[in-house]
């Protein structure tokens, strides 16, 4: 009667019960007992990253593409602090990850011991929840609740901090098997009860506004993807003929090739999408949070419209923009109740107006140029893959071009660091995505800046035989910062030129990765096809025009009046 286990075994057993298969991590002193237990659990596959930031981003990418909770491990002190960028990224974009972090032994906590860091203190404002486990017997309960908190409601990261001697201490459980014990554990979180249903009378109010609207638009965000409400969104849009605008993280929640799709609005969004928001008489915001990159100046945003806001997180309602009808709930469930009550209608005039806007403001059209334009690379990538690929990006100009010029036809095929805007996401993020969907084509559209922040993970990619394809949009400059310097700092280009970029082809070669360099637009398609035909990872160094800018552009905190659609000069003739 009774089973004896140490803290590490309890943790691994619990992870197995939560359905964990892949763990991204890097060992160190304070988490060694846990690592030394891994061989007892062959069902847990550990992927050894080269940096803990890579582990956190990979767990994040894995979680986004699979919908499961991603897991990463790190040691105390620098291991924990290296996770921070990845944890903050997951928090800003509501991604469910559980980070298990080693801590110095209980008696040493608070003594500034070797590699001691106050991990729960540091991660408190960037996690959905975190826990320092001081008693090994509590580990299963903590793990069970961590996965529940991370994966339900508005998802988010949870950190479990485990002192080294808690990992080694043995405890006796009064059960015959761990299964029996784990199944008997009950989640005890009286302060955590996500409201999923949506209030019926609020839904009726929303239906009334939708039925009365003449110029409605849907703003679809990340929430559609988390909720898996693709069909429900499409049903609503088609039934009432409402154009759908997708936020950066809402891209691929609605097919880009659908007649009702209007694309991304905001700072670098399609001009017609931003204008449509301004002209609309009703905004139906679904699982999005009125980020400043969309609203610009909040007091001047979409003043003509009434607003319905459906979100699972009540604190998002009224945070940035006042709304008329808030509904708190899970989108799939709320839309399932709302859709049947909405009247079928056509909105012919309004849809015609949207077509006019698209014709008058063709933001998606790439101009003719002899140079190798980065936009063209994205477009070719879209055409060659037929949209049947997961695109992962870093942050900056290439991210915006990837958002603008790829035709996303299938759910959850665009993965990017939105809220946090973490450069360097493109390498480990793509790695985690490929681990999550091993049979899908994964394209990392990378910046030369971000790529260099995390390129150590190329070794992890080779080691684990992950066929990630990298399209480095190499302009030898921190492009978006460069663009801001041009617009807002009188072309004073301080610290943005990368004058000593490595030879990315040789670099990839050093990692044992197939690589190509493309400098002319006629080579683009062939290179992409060649990469697709190769069954391992590939790096393509696309050497592009340095002075290319992202348009349209609405300055930070601006309004629709600040919309700049095209350059008023040939950029590369001026700047040199």
């Amino acid at each position, binding site marked *: 009667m009774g089973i004896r286990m140490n803290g590490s075994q309890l943790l691994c057993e619990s992870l197995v019960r939560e359905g964990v298969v892949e763990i991204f991590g890097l060992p160190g002193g304070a988490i060694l007992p846990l690592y030394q237990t891994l061989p007892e659990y062959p069902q847990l596959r550990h992927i050894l990253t080269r940096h803990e930031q890579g582990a956190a981003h990979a767990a994040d990418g894995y979680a986004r593409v699979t919908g499961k909770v991603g897991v990463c491990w790190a040691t105390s002190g620098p291991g924990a602090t290296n996770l921070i960028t990845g944890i903050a990224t997951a928090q800003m974009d509501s991604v469910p990850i559980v980070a298990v972090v080693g801590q110095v032994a209980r008696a040493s906590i608070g003594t500034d011991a070797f590699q001691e860091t106050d991990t729960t203190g540091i991660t408190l*404002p960037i996690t959905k929840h975190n826990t320092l486990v001081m008693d090994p017997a509590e580990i299963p309960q903590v793990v069970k609740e961590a996965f529940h908190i991370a994966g339900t409601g508005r998802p988010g990261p949870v950190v479990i901090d485990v002192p080294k001697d808690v990992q080694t201490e043995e405890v006796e459980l009064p059960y015959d098997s761990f299964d029996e014990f784990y199944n008997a554990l009950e989640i005890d979180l009286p302060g955590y009860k996500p409201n999923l249903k949506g209030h019926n009378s609020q839904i009726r109010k929303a239906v009334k506004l939708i039925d009365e609207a003449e110029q409605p638009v849907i703003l679809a965000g990340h929430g559609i993807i988390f909720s898996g409400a693709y069909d429900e969104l499409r049903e609503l849009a088609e039934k009432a003929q409402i154009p759908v605008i997708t936020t950066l993280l809402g891209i691929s929640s609605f097919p880009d090739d659908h007649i009702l799709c209007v694309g991304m609005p905001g700072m670098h969004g399609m001009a017609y999408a931003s204008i449509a928001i301004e002209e609309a008489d009703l905004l139906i915001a679904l699982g999005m949070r009125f980020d400043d990159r969309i609203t610009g100046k909040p007091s001047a945003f979409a003043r003509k419209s009434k607003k319905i806001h459906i979100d699972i997180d009540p*604190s998002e309602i*009224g945070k940035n923009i006042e709304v008329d009808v808030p509904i708190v709930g899970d989108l799939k469930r709320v839309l399932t109740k709302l859709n049947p009550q909405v009247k079928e209608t056509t909105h012919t005039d309004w849809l015609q107006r949207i077509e006019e806007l698209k014709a008058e403001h063709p933001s998606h059209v790439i101009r003719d140029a002899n140079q190798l334009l980065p936009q063209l690379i994205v477009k070719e990538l879209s055409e060659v893959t037929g949209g049947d690929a997961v695109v992962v990006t870093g942050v900056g100009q290439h991210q915006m071009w990837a958002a603008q010029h790829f035709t996303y036809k299938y759910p959850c095929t665009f993965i990017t660091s939105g809220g946090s805007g973490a450069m360097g996401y493109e390498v480990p993020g793509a790695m985690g995505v490929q681990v999550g969907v091993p049979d899908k084509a994964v394209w990392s559209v990378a910046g030369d800046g971000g790529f260099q922040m995390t390129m150590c993970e190329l070794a992890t990619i080779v080691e684990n035989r992950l066929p990630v394809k990298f399209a480095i949009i190499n302009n030898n400059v921190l492009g978006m910062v460069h663009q801001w310097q041009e617009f807002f700092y009188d072309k004073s280009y301080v610290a943005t030129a990368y004058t000593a970029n490595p030879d990315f082809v040789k670099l990839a070669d050093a990692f044992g990765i197939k690589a190509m360099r493309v400098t002319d637009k006629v080579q683009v398609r062939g290179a992409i096809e060649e990469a697709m035909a190769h069954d391992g990872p590939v790096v393509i160094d696309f050497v592009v025009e340095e002075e290319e800018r992202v348009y349209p552009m609405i300055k930070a905190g601006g309004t629709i009046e600040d919309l700049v659609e095209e350059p008023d000069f040939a950029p590369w003739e001026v700047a040199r």
Partner: protein
Amino acid sequence: MTTNGSTVQNHTITALVRDKPGVLNRVSSMFRRRGFNIVSLAVGHSEEPDLSRMTFVVEGDKRTIEQVNKHLHKLIDVIRVSEVSSDNVVSRELALIKIRATSETRSEIIQIVEIFNAKIAGVSPDHLIVEVTGDQDKIESLLGLVKRFGVMEVMRTGTIVMERWLGHLHDQQSGAKRRNWGEAASV
């Protein structure tokens, strides 16, 4: 003072929280991070084991207070949040005030203390320690009256409140503008 056209004033919010290490840190960190302004904060055990009750006096307009409520509720260890109006609650704060006192002023100070139903908690040759309980207004008025004698030190507990009726059971009858952020009970 106004922002966004609505008035900035003090609001009282109570929260029932789990009595676990770090909970106060989570709460205060949230206030700091989101730039909410705490006027006073009092924490103590509640009627239930393992649960504590916090009373916040927060300065802000209506929209800010709504966000404070929602973000408090978003914390996993916070179980219930309510905003209470001053109409139908008992609101108390305890203050200890060290007042400079000479043989000439001592009796006048004691008279004032008596009017306020306060107590002399300590006496020494050059000062008195006065213990006073009441709502914030009462303590402010006492402080105003004794200021001229020389206030050497003030220690205040922060306001705690309790509704006259059994809160959620008698919401309708009590007439207190108690707002239950039921929908906020999630993340």
